[in-house]
């Protein structure tokens, strides 16, 4: 158990260093922030600024400097906002996390009961209906879903605000949009893994004992069907973080995704680096949590 933990922590550090290197490399080949900052300045002025910002040093030196600073939690000052990057990024974190967690919660609470029912009533009208909705959900791009939901609920029915982040009502549409993207796959996974276990001997035994159908499904079957669900849910969480970037743009949500997209356009290296680093950290932590859940759900892993 302890070695497992240690191994995971080492992996975490390696992943984060790798992500930093890739981000750094891509950013530094993507253009010259100084000429974006001073589009009309004479070249001489730009040289001075490049020097002041340390851009004239060789790339490996710059990367070493960046790593040393990152290790100390210092991502530098945002070129655009002229303020330390990390607080700016951290400030946006809760918004994006809230959106992602809400969407994940909604996804699971839709996918699990409907998936189970589809499996139990295999090939019924309900099952086919669910399959149809799944295809629909997977086929719709997030930004399109978002705009359609706005048109229906905000413009036509006038039930919810179009965009913003000022009230709880404003959270509904972005959450729904994001959940539309992640629910279908979860639902398929629940259905197929339930189908695998529902005809196994131990389920039949449980039924034969006279255990109520409710307990058979929720206790005996679902716990064993949960492993693939947890795996996919963990992966979906990372996808949702990515989807949040688009959702935030459509619904004018002041989250991390919008900050990073803006920073990429402005070649604001420190913000991009801090933002990508934090997202990578969250993804790694979520995967770590998934691993722990495995151990809880499947005692065999503990023995191995």
């Amino acid at each position, binding site marked *: 158990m302890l070695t497992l933990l240690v191994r995971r922590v080492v992996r975490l550090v390696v992943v984060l260093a790798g992500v930093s290197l890739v981000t750094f490399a891509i950013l530094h080949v*993507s*253009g*010259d922030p100084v*000429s*974006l*900052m*001073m*589009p*009309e*300045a*004479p*070249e*001489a002025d730009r040289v001075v*600024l490049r020097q002041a910002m340390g851009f004239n040093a060789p790339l490996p030196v710059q990367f070493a400097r960046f790593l040393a600073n990152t290790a100390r939690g210092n991502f530098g000052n*945002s070129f*655009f*906002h*002229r*303020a330390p990057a990390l607080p*700016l990024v951290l*400030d*946006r974190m809760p918004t994006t996390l809230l959106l992602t967690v809400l969407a994940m919660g909604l996804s699971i609470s839709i996918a699990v009961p409907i998936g189970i*029912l589809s499996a139990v*009533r295999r090939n*019924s*009208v*309900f099952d086919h209906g669910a399959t149809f909705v799944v295809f629909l959900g997977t086929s719709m791009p997030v*930004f399109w879903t978002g*705009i359609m939901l*706005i*048109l229906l*609920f*905000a*413009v036509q029915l*006038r*039930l*919810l*605000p*179009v*965009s*913003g*982040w*000022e*009230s*709880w*009502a404003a959270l*509904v549409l972005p959450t729904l949009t994001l959940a539309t993207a992640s629910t279908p796959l979860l639902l398929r996974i629940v259905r197929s893994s339930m189908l695998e276990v529902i005809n196994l001997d131990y389920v039949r035994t449980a039924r034969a004992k006279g255990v109520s159908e409710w307990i058979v499904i929720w206790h005996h079957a679902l716990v064993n069907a949960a492993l693939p669900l947890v795996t996919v849910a963990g992966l979906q969480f990372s996808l949702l973080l990515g989807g949040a970037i688009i959702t935030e*743009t*459509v*619904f*004018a949500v*002041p989250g991390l995704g*919008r*900050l990073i997209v*803006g920073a*990429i*356009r402005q*070649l604001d290296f420190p913000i991009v680096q801090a933002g990508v680093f934090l997202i990578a950290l969250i993804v790694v932590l979520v995967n770590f949590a998934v691993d722990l859940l495995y151990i809880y759900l499947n005692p065999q892993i503990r023995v191995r």
Partner: protein
Amino acid sequence: MKRWVLLAAALAIAVLAAAPPAARAQAKDTLVVALVSHPPTLDPHMHFERVGILVNINMFDSLIHRNTKLEFEPSLATSWKALSDTQWEFKLRKGVRFHNGDTMTPEDVKYSFDRVIDQTKKSPQYGNIRAIKEVRVVNPETVHIITDKPFPLLLERLVFFSIVPKKHVEAVGDQAFGTTSPAGTGPWKFVEWKRDQMIRLEAFDQHWRGRPPFKNLVFRAVPEVATQVAEIKTGGVDIIRNVSADIVPELKTHPQAYISSTPILRVHYLAFDMRSAPFDKKLVRQAANYAIDKQTIIQKLMGGLGRQVATTVQPLAFGFDPEVKPYPYDPKKAKELLAQAGYPNGVDITFHSSSVPNRPEFEAICQMLTEVGIRTTPKMWDPGPAWNKFFQTEGKATNGIYGTWGNYSVFDADAVLHPLYHTEPGGWIGKWYTRVEGLDKLIDEGRSSVDQPKRKRTYSQIQQMIREEAPTIFLWTQFDTLGISKKVQYAARGDEWLWLFDAKPAAR
């Protein structure tokens, strides 16, 4: 089965009923403006972002204001005159209050300029006023501005140059002044700023013009155009900017909104690389100008929201010469000129653009060129880093690029001529692309005199010269198109400003 359907239906109804009414109908005394993004700072001297300028002008005053006819008007300066080629005198308005209660003094004016001229502060606006050598306090009502050489654009530059309270800025520090404690003399004062969400302002009781008609002013950041349109239809916001041609008809007929549109300084062009074939030949450049049916593009693709121009110097700018006429659409003549230039069988070229909103126009232009024999491959770029990199490397040597130039809101021919055509090393695309004998000298002549009649003659000469030499395809000037809620009475301005002191609740 039935039970589940019923349950789902009941649940859906419950959710919808529980949701608060979305009628976020804004209170009557609140004006909400949607911007695509927020500026990096509210410090009016430390950014050069259009969205920032739009917010700042409603919080800060400058020495000079421009009215809706785009004429200079007194603001914090009540009068001004040139004492010599390099020295200007400004009389200051008396008894003007800052939002923090301080009275404006000449020291504040001097301080405001000094913090931009001071290069250690790295103000992005430094280049705008670098010609200013010194601001001198003469007496409690007078300041002198001394330039290092004749600077005819001085008054233009002063229209957006905010005066800030010296004592206040020094007390709170530059960082806080730009984020949590901005204070000026303008119609609205700062309340709160949630980044990328909303900037909330409140009417300033002691503003020297009097109170603005709207008590609260909110600038929301709404990046997606479709979302902005949905917001204005539902009353979530009152003003949206840059409404595109395809959305105009929809808002024109909407019961809650209307369209206000006016020509602005932004001019569209296609710049040739004149150093290499085929555009090193004047006849080919002229042929390209004859090949474009500008009226059809404006009517069919731009919803009529554009006006063709003779050169890149446009009617709103000082120095515009109405005697210089646009190239007519004449594909036959274009083919003849092309043959005369030595390309009887046509020529293959590539043009580049990163202007996503103008993609249909760009592609139409390329098609029209192809039809006369200048077979053009249009290449679109993402306006982000890829374009930036292209522009700084290969972009220096290609056949040409489509572009738009906003003149930095300076109503003077120099603001477009210098960046587009001057070849000095510090310049913009002119240094790579343009090679017209004698043009540099004329542009220099225009910018180094404050004798306006003389400058006007110089600019007439330049316009005749560039129309003949055709270093660019001259296209059209863009319109600024606002979508406005019917609850609000306001009109788009030629300088793209949102001067919301002029906005009034509509009488209904």
